[in-house]
């Protein structure tokens, strides 16, 4: 059966960036951007992606709503959510959307992990791992997915607080995970029957990390799929988005806030902090896990921090350094440099960390 692609375009995505604004959230920003001469481009980016996809897969069926909003007329997040839900219910094989991090959040709200999602980059900010590098790269990835050359992975949806960003402060949050295609050939031949490559890699990594925690050692586990695997290896069930505290196979603080962590650390001197890089940006601390504040990190101690990432995750960073942004420049400097990262059973990588 021909693959069916559902298409959602956020027509106002990217307007702010073209005129020097740091995002396009809010009606006033759209009006200001348009007044400054911004031209909508998300539609054209999606058209480019779809034409490129058609060049590869002539049989692909494109499904979209019949909505044609006037950007000035004030389209908003609700339109994205409604459109995505309608397409998900129509049973599309892949939901292709054009927008930025804000749009990705709306898609997350609308469909969660019910339908595979892929982002055509058209926004001002694109920190979420769900975006391809370009419209044509998105087409390539979609075609690979339909050909069975790409697997589905849980991909981070990140977004900045735009108010803070325009005021010059960066504050990124991890909003959740969608399921999106991801190329497996970064680490192994594609479609190797019977070898569950990334799952096996994650299991080995989790076992290695678990083996380093002695009895009674409390461990603060950051968010994400890597830490979920570590928790499973420890016999605990953790939240995907939250920071959890685990000891002896039991979760002793679920979705902990900074205050919870500090309280727990007041009585635990040998705690470990275990984190994984977030998204495609490579942040290990300060983005997506702000609960792990600089004070929490200092209380645990830098020598008791364990960073873990599968070889595929490191490869997806394309030789960029890991990043820290704790808001405490002294701590960031202390964290920077070269650090061992657990990558599997009996395997580590030495990665550069930059502030």
């Amino acid at each position, binding site marked *: 059966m021909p693959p069916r692609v559902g298409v959602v375009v956020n027509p106002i995505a990217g307007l702010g960036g073209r005129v020097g604004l740091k995002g396009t959230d809010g009606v006033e920003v759209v009006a200001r951007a348009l007044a400054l001469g911004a031209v909508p481009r998300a539609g054209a980016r999606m058209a480019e992606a779809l034409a490129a996809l058609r060049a590869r897969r002539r049989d692909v069926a494109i499904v979209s709503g019949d909505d044609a909003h006037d950007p000035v007329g004030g389209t908003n997040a609700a339109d994205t959510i409604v459109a995505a839900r309608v397409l998900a219910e129509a049973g599309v094989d892949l939901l292709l959307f054009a927008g930025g991090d804000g749009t990705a959040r709306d898609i997350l709200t609308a469909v969660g992990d019910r339908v595979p999602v892929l982002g055509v980059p058209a926004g001002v900010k694109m920190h979420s791992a769900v975006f391809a590098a370009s419209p*044509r790269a998105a087409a*390539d990835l979609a075609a690979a997915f339909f050909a069975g050359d790409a697997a589905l992975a849980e991909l981070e949806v990140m977004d900045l607080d735009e108010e803070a960003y325009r005021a010059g402060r960066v504050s990124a949050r991890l909003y959740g995970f969608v399921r999106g295609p991801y190329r497996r050939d970064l680490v192994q*031949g*594609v479609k190797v*029957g019977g070898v569950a490559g990334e799952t096996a890699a994650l299991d080995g990594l989790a076992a290695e990390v678990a083996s380093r925690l002695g009895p009674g050692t409390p461990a603060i586990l950051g968010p994400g799929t890597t830490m979920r695997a570590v928790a499973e290896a420890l016999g605990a069930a953790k939240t995907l988005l939250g920071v959890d505290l685990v000891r002896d196979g039991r979760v002793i603080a679920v979705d902990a806030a900074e205050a919870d962590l500090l309280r727990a650390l007041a009585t635990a001197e040998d705690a470990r902090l275990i984190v994984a890089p977030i998204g495609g940006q490579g942040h290990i601390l300060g983005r997506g896990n702000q609960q792990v504040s600089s004070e929490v990190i200092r209380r645990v101690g830098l020598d008791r921090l364990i960073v873990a990432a599968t070889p595929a995750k490191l490869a997806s960073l394309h030789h960029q350094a890991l990043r820290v942004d704790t808001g405490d420049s002294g701590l960031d400097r202390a964290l920077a440099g070269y650090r061992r990262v657990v990558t599997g059973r009996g395997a580590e990588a*030495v990665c550069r960390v930059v502030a």
Partner: protein
Amino acid sequence: MTAPRNGFHAARWNEPLIQDLSEPGARGLLPGAVEPAIRAGAGDALARVPAHVRRAAPPALPEVTQHRVVRHFTRLAQMTMGFDVTTDMMGTCTMKYSPKVHEHIVRAARLADVHPGQDPETLQGVLAILYRFNRMMCAIAGMDEFTFQPASGAQGIYTNACLIRAYHAARGELGRRDEIITTAFSHPADAATPHVAGFKVITLMPGPQGYPELAALEAAVSPRTAGLMLTNPEDTGQYNPAIRAFVERVHAVGGLCAYDQANGNPLLGIARAGDAGFDLCQFNLHKTFSAPHGAIGLGCAAVGVKEPLRRFLPRPVVTLDGTRYGLDDDRPDAIERIRAFLGNVPTVVKAYAWVMSLGTEGLRAVAETAVLNNNYLLANIRRIKGVAIPWPENTAPKLEQVRYSWEPLHNDTGVTTMEIEQRMVDYGVQHYMPSHVPVLVPQPFTIEPGESLTIEEMDHMIATLRAIAAEAYEEPEVVHHAPHHASVARVDDGIANDPATWAFTHRALAKKRAAWSKPRSAAAKRHAGY
């Protein structure tokens, strides 16, 4: 400007397996009946074959006429894009012209018909070559003794790991030295084989110049360090100029340093592993020393060690007592044998012949020409639209190969490096090497010209890449759906990589076919229409 080769089309024969051509009674030729006197004189020839090596039943060879056999293999050869019909610049493989006369030498009866089980007294000529070539390799690498037993690069690297293990075990330190350090752009066997040998492995990721900084090593070394195993230049073609400091740092904590010289072509006659302080090293004779590799050649990794590691080399070691060559099997400290007997001796003989024909100056000319060729390609390929050179801030010349990136082209056009690789076949060029895994450079391709190509061949390669890049921008469909003129269009990698769906022998194939006829697995279902 050189034009790419247009109008090429590969032969395409729908050729069955030779076993499937078998017809009972078909023969190539029928020998005449043996005269009764000869038959009587010879007696029962089979009875002279020892019972334990005698077949219970004749082999199930296909029965095919001579002309059909010749056509079968000629057709397969026509569909094969080998070095004898077109250029190959496959990076990390050091493909080079291998003198045909070497094949003649090793197929001659005086080598082909000897057996390693013979008394060494009857193998003096072969042992003399092995002994002499061992001394030559020691001079080339700055080592004290070599073994030629490993039959592939990975086996050679595994041998390095086993030697490091044996050294620490002999000192009673193995229990507390369990970490091997390697680098992300070394051959993956430098990470994989120490794991097999029981070590933990720490991989240094590249720094801003594309190779690891000393500070990265600093974060990895400790009293647990058993050794350092790496290539230099790495697969990116970039030479780590701080290599001596790396070696000294690892020595300072009591570790050994093993130099994987799979990328050793640019070092011949210029730099020696021993002089840089390495304790052991390995060369691939089937790459750097011209012996063919892949389907037409036997691999051989030459592993060399300095004096303190000599006693750990696998048995037997070829000795010379002044006049006669012998085999030393009495080696109590030796690691387990990596391969039976002396390894792939024909490959050693080819490498010996190659070194003898070049001499010291010739080896240096090999390295210099390979580096010059590579930088000629680099200067031209970097100007092709859509190509990026990773770590642009590193402006030092590359050595024997370059890992390029099609990332700009992929973002502009959606065309991938694998599609370009397929499209090259339409221009009558063999594929390139994209990258070892993990893939750290996006949309990678790795090209190594070696020393034996002409400038016309390199210009043709450049023109081909330029033409395909232009196609990607102007009519990407042509590249997406390539190849169009090849013997076989796309091979399903999944089938080629899945042990359930390939077979190396006809007997294994028969078993798997039987399994496929009873669909159970996804692999079986893919083959339902076989």
